[in-house]
């Protein structure tokens, strides 16, 4: 019987990697495979779902496939380096340290270590699974002998229908914006996400097109110094009241932020996949995005893709999107179609096919 055990540094609720790991475990079990989750740490809510990785040696069986969810540095990676079982990397990308240098040097060191670990594991892995071709290319550069592109398990069905939004939140947002054009970006406040360039764009957009326009930034201020700088910069430009920052939103509140905005704008320099693009498609929000990292492939033509992020170019693109109903309809149609490629059924089937084939190949060798 096929056995695929997953190893993950931390199992957290309402976290993309955590959700992905649990959904995969359920998928493997549903097809009759043996599958458990081993962690360095788990949130109290999920303790019953996981086992500490140090306990794995007592349970190891010949033929086990170990699937490592690589998203941060961890002693789990060191542990797996010493194991002799077949190793598969599921790579969700680790932001290069250069983005944090100067902003948060300890984070730069942390991600540098994490990337070193991934590089070491990649060279020893039998297979690397990446959620985008962009990530697969990184794995190959790390020395991974073979890669497969399988998207992250984003549980689109669980996002609910566009009608299922927090109505109170939507009313509150609607009151605060009035008739202003409203730009939205969802993602942690971090230098690689370039929220400061969204502020620059907003400033020019207000000057050119709509003096009341607003920018909504949703996401935790992971890099505190950068978040402070972005908000201070906005204040310096006279935009303190025009930039809203939402942290700790419930899924229904987040849905309200999507539903009450006019355009999703992404100017990230580095994205390994970018789930918020799928969320924007789900809520029929037109997308204007800078072509960096995995953004072009995730977007798949369902948005206006820019090869420059000069505020003038971005502002003009936003204006075009919010004033052209035909374009919005066509982007919405393309978005819904694109979203169909990421439904959990497709992704689950791909994971089972890829790992099943690997298991069969290993059996043949044995």
């Amino acid at each position: 019987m096929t056995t695929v055990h997953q190893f993950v540094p931390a199992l957290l609720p309402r976290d993309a990697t955590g959700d992905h790991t649990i959904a995969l475990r359920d998928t493997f079990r549903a097809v009759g495979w043996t599958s458990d989750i081993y962690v360095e740490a788990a949130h109290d809510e999920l303790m019953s779902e996981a086992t500490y990785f140090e306990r794995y040696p007592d349970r190891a069986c010949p033929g086990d496939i170990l699937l490592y969810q690589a998203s941060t540095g961890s002693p789990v990676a060191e542990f797996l380096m010493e194991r002799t079982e077949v190793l598969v990397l599921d790579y969700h990308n680790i932001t290069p340290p250069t983005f944090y240098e100067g902003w948060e040097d300890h984070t730069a060191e942390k991600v540098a270590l994490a990337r070193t670990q991934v590089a070491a594991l990649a060279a020893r892995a039998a297979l690397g699974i990446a959620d985008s071709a962009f990530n697969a290319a990184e794995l190959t550069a790390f020395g991974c002998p073979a890669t497969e592109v399988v998207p992250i398990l984003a549980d689109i069905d669980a996002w609910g229908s566009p009608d299922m939004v927090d109505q109170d939140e939507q009313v509150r947002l609607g009151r605060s914006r009035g008739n202003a054009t409203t730009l939205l970006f969802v993602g942690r406040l971090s230098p690689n996400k370039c929220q400061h360039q969204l502020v620059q764009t907003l400033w020019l957009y207000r000057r050119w097109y709509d003096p009341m326009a607003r920018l909504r930034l949703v996401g935790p201020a992971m890099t505190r110094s950068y978040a402070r700088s972005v908000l201070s910069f906005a204040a310096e430009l006279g935009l303190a009241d025009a930039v809203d920052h939402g942290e700790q939103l419930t899924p229904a509140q987040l849905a309200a932020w999507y539903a009450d905005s006019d355009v999703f704008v992404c100017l990230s320099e580095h994205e390994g996949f970018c789930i918020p693009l799928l969320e924007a498609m789900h809520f029929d929000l037109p997308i204007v995005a800078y072509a960096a990292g995995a953004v072009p492939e995730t977007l798949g033509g369902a948005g206006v893709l820019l090869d420059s992020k000069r505020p003038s170019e971005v502002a003009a693109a936003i204006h075009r999107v919010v004033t052209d109903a035909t374009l919005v309809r066509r982007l919405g149609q393309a978005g819904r179609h694109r979203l169909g490629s990421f439904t959990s059924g497709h992704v689950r089937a791909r994971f089972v096919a890829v790992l099943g084939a690997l298991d069969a190949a290993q059996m043949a060798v044995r």
Partner: protein
Amino acid sequence: MPAVTPSEPEMASTGPDAPIDAAVVDGETEGSPVQLDAVGRARYLAEVMEEIDAEVRRRRASGDLPPGLERELDEMFLEFSPLGLQGKARLRETLALVDGSAYVDISVPVASQKKAGVYIKRLIRKSMGWYIGFIVHQLVKFAWSVSRMLHVVVDHVEVLESTIDALRPPELPAGSATVGDPGTAWWAEHARASLSATRGRVLHGECGNGSLVGLLVSAGVDAYGVDPAELMIEPAVDQGLDIRSESMLDHLEVVADEALDGIVLSGSLQWLHANERDRLIRMATGRLAIGGTLVLHSSTPEAWDRGVTALVADLAPGRPLHAETWTHLLSGLGVSTRAVHVGGDDRRLQRLDPSVPGADTVNAAVEVLNELLLGPGEFLLIAVRDR
């Protein structure tokens, strides 16, 4: 600005490449046979991008986007970034931070809300003092060594900066360089002929009044230009030509590698400082697609003083290169010269008829004079990127 064509990962059978029936789009084209497959969608988005680009050009031309505004916005944000990202201007301030943090205080605070807490903390501090003190002493010694070394480095950097400042040529007053009409120049026809077969975009750097861009466009070439002189490009912009008000270096910064099928370099390229000239030519050749054509116009070194104003002749940071030198430099960048045309102001002296007494002596002198001082005024080099 060309739209980026995304590469889509191989997905399940209902992937994004499957045709979409436009009739189902919210009734937008109900009953229409038009279908938007991936190609149609990409074409449609490319048209949208062209219109967005035109809107930006219109804004620039109307003065809504003053030159340098976007750079000012970037510089403004840097003011809010940590000192380490703000560049050498803050070197001394950053060094002061290092000095300040090089001292480690071993007098650990003992304040506590409980009386016993103060006592216990004081006891720990006293009993551990000899141990912590020994470690901290070495740490502080190391930190001060690093700090001293940084002071030495900063001192050297400042000396170097002042030396470089002293060597920097004076700035040319605005408008001191004369600008011709490239569309009617002797080399325009050569440029057009070498670029007429290109299919992708062709950029003319320092395009002046845009007349060469106009000539290329009328020949069916997808040409556009950049020039920092806003007033000069205005008439061309009004005529609907794609001319942007920015420097060639600024523009090339945002162009993707291998995105252009042709580049025309003229104007101040010939008298840029060697560093800037190298940077420009490296960027330009990098932006050129394999098989793309580079057209380079320059004065000859012999005619340099003749072709420019006195201010430019005296104060320009660089001097023109020979066509052979350009050929050598470009070959190192994977670009090979295919043709060199000479033209422009030619003041070569005529040779005497050999039958005239003493003609041999005079003609020998004429040869020397022609070669050293009076050769053809300009050349046009046409090259192709091979790799």
